[in-house]
């Protein structure tokens, strides 16, 4: 039966630095396995769309421009992504990867959160086509 079991701890804390991390000023290194922004390598992709079937939040879309020549564009909606790693697990060709560096992804607008992956000319081709009405390609949405 005691009173003030915390006394020793309190005195120690008075002479200790606060445990609070001063986040935007002091940054701790991120762990190796941190799940951040999704990266896509179109060169390895076979267009099997397994990642899209398994994505729990419908955050990725794949637009096939030319399957024979392996021309794909992946539209990644970062605002929907839950960073669960399921797409990476589902991909048999290792063309997806979650970055451990890019994780401060918040944005007030939607545009920076929609990312087009693919060869530059393919992305250009897709964006030009999308600009025309009626040709929007959203294979993932019902």
């Amino acid at each position, binding site marked *: *039966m005691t009173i003030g079991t915390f006394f020793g*701890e309190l005195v120690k804390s008075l002479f200790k630095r606060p*445990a609070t991390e001063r986040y935007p000023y002091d940054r701790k290194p991120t762990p190796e396995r941190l799940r951040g922004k999704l990266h896509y390598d179109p060169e390895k992709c076979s267009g099997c769309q397994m990642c899209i079937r398994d994505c729990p939040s419908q955050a990725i879309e794949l637009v096939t421009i030319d399957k024979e020549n392996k021309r794909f564009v992946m539209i990644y909606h970062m605002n929907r992504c839950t960073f669960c*790693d*399921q797409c990476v697990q589902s991909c048999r060709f290792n063309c997806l990867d979650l970055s451990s560096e890019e994780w401060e992804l918040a944005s007030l607008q939607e545009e920076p959160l929609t990312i087009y992956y693919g060869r530059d000319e393919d992305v250009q081709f897709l964006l030009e086509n999308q600009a025309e009405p009626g040709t929007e390609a959203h294979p993932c949405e019902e």
Partner: protein
Amino acid sequence: MEIKKVDEGKFVVPIGPQHPALKEPGHFEFTVDGEIVMDAKVRLGFVHRGIEKMAEQRTYTRDLYLMERVCGICSHVHGTAFTLGVEKLAGVTAPPRAQAIRVIIAELERIHSHLLWLGVAAHEGGFDTLFMYSWRDRETVMDLLELLSGNRVHYSANVLGGVKFDINPVQTDQIRRGVDYLEERTQFYQKVVTTDNTFLGRTRGVGYMSREQAELQGAVGPTARASGVTRDVRVDAPYSFYPQTPVQIVLDDGGDLTARFIVRIKELFEAYRLVRLLLDNLPEGELATRMPRRIPAGEVISRVEAPRGELMYFIRSNGTDMPERVKIRTPSLCNWGTITSTAVGLKLADMPMLLAGIDPCFSCNDRMIRVRRAGEPGVMTWDQIKAGKGGWSV
């Protein structure tokens, strides 16, 4: 505006759905006579999200992540319950290494959940110093989980048929160091909650529940074990890797709030022991086996021990890649009865701690329950539900 008068000198104190004591929405009505609580009512259902219905329109893989989001604190254990159920339906067993990693993550999650609870309960009792210290130390286990999985909260360790990541020797060392530190800290917290007079003054003898009462009310988890009920799924029906690493059930006969503190803190020690044991005896092998996309038709009940008690999943498959029905029974739901029965006669000031004593998770609770009385039909039609008839409550 008038005060809702119940009786002369008595009035109803509403707590919630918006109240500083509640971190999630719930509604409680305490009829008080001065400071003494005469009656307690619980009303839940403010964060109903329709997860069970949603699950019927998604594939099993996508459901897994939905289930993790039933609860933000015990996400892994929900995922594990679902995965174990689906694996059983498909007739697949995850490799032993995957099972062991699942258990390690589950025990780390239990540590994080119990430390979080310790802080919340202390805060409800107005002991903010204990709150701050226990949450500071909880960061250690959060960092360990982030180290292993890459996420602090939704670890998403499971895939159907195994786990996503391995534990390498460097991480093993880090976990060991973290667990050693936490064990030392937990010993201090044990000293605080068992010997500090001001704290004991708020917990000892408060909310006493006898073993018979606990069994009658259907209490589960640490709440039941603090009343001496031997109920722990890890012991009663070991799953995953628990048969190979037996758990020693933590019991206390106190039945009051002090006992609930003691049980949870002793469970922390048990979790530290289990994590160390598992790290020493991590079986070699694959991390995942192949899983069919279409799950054979059938029904399964999957039970696991969440930090709050027994968690039950019922899954029915119709042979497609989507479940026909998923029913979740969360542990918090079973423990509400103990609140309304033990609250009467206590002081109003005890209520926040009594509520915190069962470690309630409100968003877990928000599913429909119906108490079926003898002779009533077991099936309800939509019209009955809409009309609010038939003794159901959300």
